């Protein structure tokens, strides 16, 4: 295979990454990767077809016919064959600081990615690569998700060398820019990493309990639901709990019924927490956050080791999130957020745009935030709370109409339960609005803007004003009368709104922020 060529090169020269003008083929193991990803795509496509197929099969009563088996066989064969075909249709080369890839079976695509466009280099190790020492290199650009390129299977050390070269290339090219502290240091190839944070298994268990990481595993287990439910009800039946008997028949007292319900809910909660812990361990096992030159690197994963790296200067915002359970346990989820334009939905945890540090303690979180944004402090006492008009606004706009409707319906039809229900729901929502008002606030110091928000939990956001992309001030006619205004900061990582602030404050803050952006002319990347 041409693969040897790469390794030869690597041993030979220092800029071993360049593969020359010759097009390279991947390592043979890429066939496995292509087969797996094709299978995955097929399965995703089939999810919508399966119900229809099942119904037709039931109707025509031929689910066990030869036709079905042949169909399945053909499907399996064609996917595994497609892996081989994909492998042969994929060639790449790294040449003149450009990565070029020819790929695609039916629609051939040519990707030409200059090094300077690459924002992030991720190295992934799917579990079937690990014994053989291969890696998958994912190259992210600032552009759309479709511009992202994967080099599917290259030897581990080649992947590392390529990553180093791309990063070094970018560091060189951006060095003349007037950047702060870290970026000034010249990048040396062999500088070692310092580990900033590790997460122990205990931390991850806490993370699994406080955060809903159920979907990681439940998503993977979706095909087996039916089976699992029938087993569970079978198991319950063997313990003397007949679900069918419980409902409808009046053979047991209400308190017994309540007790059963409580037990079932408790068992469900425990099971969910367990699954969630499993999910947390699955994604974050062996978590390390380390720093190499001006980059932060996150490595974690039980089966598939994930690596995400992010340049310090590209971090747009730090978010510290604390749910109510986190607050009880005094833990914080810390996110470093990069630009969002390449965001793919449903991949929040794996996303290269968000670097998460799961369930750190409050002091660790503050220290990490300070490490990334020097001298920042989001735990402060000078947060300016938004106006109480916020509560009035949402009670009138959001609550008044549905509440009035249900209330009058209840009164007219003389259904007291509807009246009671509407009052209690309304009070609950009022409480939520009140909490939201109480939490929402903004603070500034001479370098950063801090926003605090949340309902029961608290989120703290911290960002540098000069990184703002766009600024929007919003005022309704009622707010104008009360001299209030909302301000929205649009950052590359998303927008942050703080409503119902004094008009003077908003305008002076806006002017100051725009002055920061336009006078310093610093790059947001």
């Amino acid at each position, binding site marked *: 295979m041409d693969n040897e060529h790469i390794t030869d090169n690597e041993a030979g020269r220092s800029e071993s990454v360049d593969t020359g003008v010759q097009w390279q083929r991947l390592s043979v193991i890429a066939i496995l990767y292509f087969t797996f990803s094709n299978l995955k795509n097929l399965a995703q496509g089939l999810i919508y077809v399966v119900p229809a197929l099942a119904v037709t099969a039931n109707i025509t009563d031929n689910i066990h016919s030869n036709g079905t088996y042949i169909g399945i066989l053909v499907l399996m064969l064609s996917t595994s064959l497609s892996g081989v075909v994909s492998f042969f249709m994929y060639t790449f080369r790294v040449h003149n600081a450009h990565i070029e890839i020819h790929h695609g079976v039916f629609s051939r695509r040519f990707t030409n990615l200059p090094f300077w466009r690459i924002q992030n280099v991720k190295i992934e190790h799917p579990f079937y690569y690990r014994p053989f020492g291969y890696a998958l290199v994912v190259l992210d650009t600032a552009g759309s998700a479709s511009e992202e390129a994967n080099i599917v299977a290259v030897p581990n050390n080649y992947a590392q060398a390529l990553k180093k070269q791309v990063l070094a290339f970018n560091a060189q090219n951006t060095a003349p820019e007037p950047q702060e502290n870290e970026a000034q240091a010249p990048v040396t190839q062999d500088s070692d990493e310092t580990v900033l944070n590790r997460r122990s298994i205990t931390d991850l268990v806490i993370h699994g309990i406080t955060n809903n990481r159920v979907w990681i595993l439940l998503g993977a287990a979706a095909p087996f639901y039916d089976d699992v439910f029938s087993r569970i009800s079978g198991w319950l039946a063997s313990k003397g709990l007949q679900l069918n008997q419980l409902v409808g028949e009046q053979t047991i007292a209400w308190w017994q019924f309540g007790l059963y319900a409580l037990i079932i809910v408790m068992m469900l909660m425990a099971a969910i927490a367990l699954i969630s812990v499993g999910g947390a361990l699955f994604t974050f096992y062996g978590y390390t956050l380390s720093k190499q030159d001006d980059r932060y690197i996150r490595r974690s994963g039980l089966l598939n080791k994930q690596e995400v790296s992010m340049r310090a200067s590209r971090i747009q915002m730090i978010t510290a999130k604390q749910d109510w359970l986190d607050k009880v346990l005094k833990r914080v989820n810390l996110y470093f957020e990069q630009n969002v334009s390449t965001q793919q939905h449903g991949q929040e945890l794996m996303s290269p745009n968000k670097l998460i540090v799961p369930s750190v303690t409050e002091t660790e979180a503050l220290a990490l935030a300070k490490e990334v944004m020097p001298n920042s402090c989001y735990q402060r006492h000078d947060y300016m709370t938004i106006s109480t008009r916020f509560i009035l606004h949402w009670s009138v706009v959001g609550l008044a109409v549905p509440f009035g409707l249900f209330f009058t319906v209840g009164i007219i039809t003389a259904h007291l339960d509807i009246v009671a229900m509407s009052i209690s729901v309304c009070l609950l929502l009022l409480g939520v609005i009140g909490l939201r008002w109480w939490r929402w606030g903004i603070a500034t110091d001479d370098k950063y803007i801090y926003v605090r928000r949340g309902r029961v939990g608290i989120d703290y956001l911290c960002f540098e004003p000069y990184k703002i992309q*766009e600024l929007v*001030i919003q*005022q309704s006619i009622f707010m104008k009368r009360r001299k209030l205004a909302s301000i929205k900061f649009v950052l590359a990582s998303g927008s942050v709104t703080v409503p119902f602030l004094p008009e003077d404050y908003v*305008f002076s803050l806006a002017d100051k922020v*725009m002055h920061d952006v336009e*006078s310093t002319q610093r790059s947001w990347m």
Partner: protein
Amino acid sequence: MTGISSSATTTFSNAQLDPDSMPAMAALRLTDVSPRYRIVNVSLALCITTLLIAIICTLRFQPFFVLPEPLLLAFPFVLTGIITLGVVWVVYHVLADVRVKYSVREQDLNLQSGLLFQTLACQPILRVQHVEIKRGPLARLAGLASLQVFSAGGALHTFEIPGLPVETAQQLRQFVLDHKVLSAK
């Protein structure tokens, strides 16, 4: 508007100002967009509403087949609904479109719009990634164009000045493209 293109060639000035004389967003001198913008929007609203009314009326009164009973009963309600929405739509544009105003400063573009909720957006030219001029068929008839300015804030936060005369839109586009902060990158 001819001032725009010439200001791009003037030397850079953005000296430190003392806070009292700092450029303030509250004190922007705003320019109206073209009055034709409202005409275009109102006629579009009228056209679509009339078209919808025409469609359901033809369905209702055509001689070829008889509609089922529930549809016949629903007809007056649907008709009222469409007319109400159409009227709201037209009235909104009559009132709101004259409130769309913009201004251009040395370092940023500003847009004010909105009827009940007035927004004032400020897009620094430094953060512009690319500029586009968008023209729908009706806008082309009226000689209008929208200037779309894209930043890294994402598709949701595209800054757009609608209802500009074509020449103005092109001048603005050129102004942004020729801007020193962008060419320096």
